[in-house]
């Protein structure tokens, strides 16, 4: 299979005062061209660090300590920063939760978009303006030519995020990593951006990794879903299948705790306890202390068990799927 992105055993660790934090610890997944994959997890699950690792954006004291990231067959781990910079924007781009991470407050939108284009190809000013205006229109910004002359602070939060998305799309990368891009936005704006993102990804043939804590938005967007817990992917599979028949008790717990599942006024089913500190993970399965199904077997780390389309990292997967050992 010729995957666009193949991540094998990725490990990104942070050496902090409180010990070694294994933010990402043995993560493997792949992504086909044009595919939208949702990466779901709670805070501290390692989902954002995974996204940053893909672009080589992990800063000290963090470091990719092992594994491989192959984008279009090319190994990214160990690539010098200069090479990575050439790839970023052109082959792979990122949209952050806070658009001000992308936008420079003292440059006009036009200048920023022109610079993003010029970083990778020779382009005339007029051509750059045309392409920028065209993209702004496509991400849902009315009156795009006039907006090109504005500064980021003159735009609303939703508009800024649209501009950040347009910049990510400028060089037509084959992969965009989106880190909670709609979390800070209002629901009505979020719905607009989700709809546009889905259409744009299809038009451009761009693959998306959509990082989010919100199962509902991911379910609306992604064809496949990866669930992360404590630095590892614990479940993977087609979105509908995973949400209908979760195999990992953690996925089940997340679904059960959504208020839309329970009848109004009833107690929600909750996952007991809280997410563990990554500097001090329990032996064996990291979810075992919060898991209703945990037993002696869970003292040892579970291996990833795969079927043709799904994977789970659990000793006691739920449901009637026949998981190979």
């Amino acid at each position, binding site marked *: 299979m010729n995957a666009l992105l193949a991540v094998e055993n990725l490990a990104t660790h942070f050496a902090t005062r409180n010990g070694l934090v294994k933010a990402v610890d043995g993560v493997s997944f792949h992504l086909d061209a044009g595919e939208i994959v949702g990466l779901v997890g709670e805070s501290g699950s390692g989902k954002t660090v995974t996204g940053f690792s893909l672009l080589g954006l992990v800063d000290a004291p963090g470091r990719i300590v092992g594994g491989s990231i192959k984008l279009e067959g090319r190994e990214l781990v160990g690539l010098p920063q200069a090479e990575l910079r050439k790839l970023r924007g052109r082959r792979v781009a990122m949209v952050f939760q806070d658009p001000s991470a992308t936008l420079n407050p003292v440059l006009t939108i036009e200048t920023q978009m022109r610079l993003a284009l010029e970083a990778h190809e020779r382009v005339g000013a007029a051509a750059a303006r045309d392409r920028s205006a065209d993209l702004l229109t496509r991400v849902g910004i009315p009156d795009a030519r006039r907006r090109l002359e504005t500064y980021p602070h003159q735009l609303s939060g939703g508009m800024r995020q649209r501009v950040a998305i347009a910049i990510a799309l400028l060089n037509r990368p084959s992969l965009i990593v989106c880190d909670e891009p709609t979390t800070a936005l209002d629901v009505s704006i979020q719905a607009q951006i989700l709809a546009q993102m889905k259409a744009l990804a299809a038009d451009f043939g761009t693959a998306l990794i959509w990082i989010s804590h919100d199962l509902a938005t991911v379910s609306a967007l992604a064809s496949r879903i990866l669930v992360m817990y404590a630095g590892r992917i614990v479940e993977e599979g087609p979105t509908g299948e995973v949400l209908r028949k979760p195999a990992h008790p953690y996925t089940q717990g997340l679904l059960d705790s959504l208020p839309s599942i329970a009848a109004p006024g009833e107690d929600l089913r909750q996952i007991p306890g809280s997410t563990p500190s990554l500097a*001090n993970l329990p032996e064996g399965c990291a979810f075992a202390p919060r898991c209703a199904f945990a037993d002696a077997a869970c003292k040892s780390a579970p291996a990833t068990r795969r079927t043709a389309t799904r994977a789970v990292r659990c000793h006691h997967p739920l449901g009637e799927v026949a998981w190979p050992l």
Partner: protein
Amino acid sequence: MNATSPVGRFWREFCENRVALAALVVVAATILLAILAPFVVPQNPYDLASLALIDARRPPGYVGRSGFVHWLGTDAQGRDLLSAILYGLRISLQVGLAAGALAFAIGATLGAVAAFVGGRVETALMRFVDLQLSFPAILLALVLVAVLGPGRGQLIAALVAAQYAYFARTAHGAAAAERAKDYVSAALSTPIPAWQVVFRHILPNCLPPLIVVATLQVANSIALEATLSFLGLGLPVTEPSLGMLIANGFQYMLSGRYWISIYPGVALILLIVAINLVGDQVRDQLNPRLKR
């Protein structure tokens, strides 16, 4: 994660900077020596009866009439310089710490209350503070000492008046930020009196930047006191502080009797640099933007 107190963590981090640690040792040793001065020095420099003019202006290492070695030489009155420096440090530290503490108390209260009350009171108070900050502290202190006259209390008062504004500015900025936080709103939802909200909730949370200002202002107070004494506006001649020792020895510099001025100067610089190094490290550690 090992459960250590925030103070313990702070201390461990502090010890990682060798220079700051050395500076802290210097400061601590100086304070200790200043406290113990009456017991460690061979001579009481304020006791005029023990001074003999025959011992005056002798170089370091000179064995005096009373039989002990003047390791740092003697001054124009025949005082043992080592003893005089330690007694001088005593005065400098007393004045510096007292002025620093008083300026801290007055300035922090003023700043925090201004931030809490808001409105015209805040504007008036902070404009006045700004106005004062636009004058050099030394100028203000000079005028005040000239008006108030000599004496330890007057000197401290002048230093406090010249320096409280720095605390007020810092406290005001920090308190305004804390005032907007929800825990203050929550406290105001209970019948706790307003002054208690200021002193129990807001001020303790403004401490980190204030501690930084405090260390630097103590060093400043000491330097300022030395400057005033050097100019002859400080303490009476019978109780020479470091500044006055330097001033007294100044006239002998050209005749080669360097030690009368230089050694008190070295002691002063050492103390001030050490306090500043400690303050710098504390500031770096308390600055969340430099936190790793």
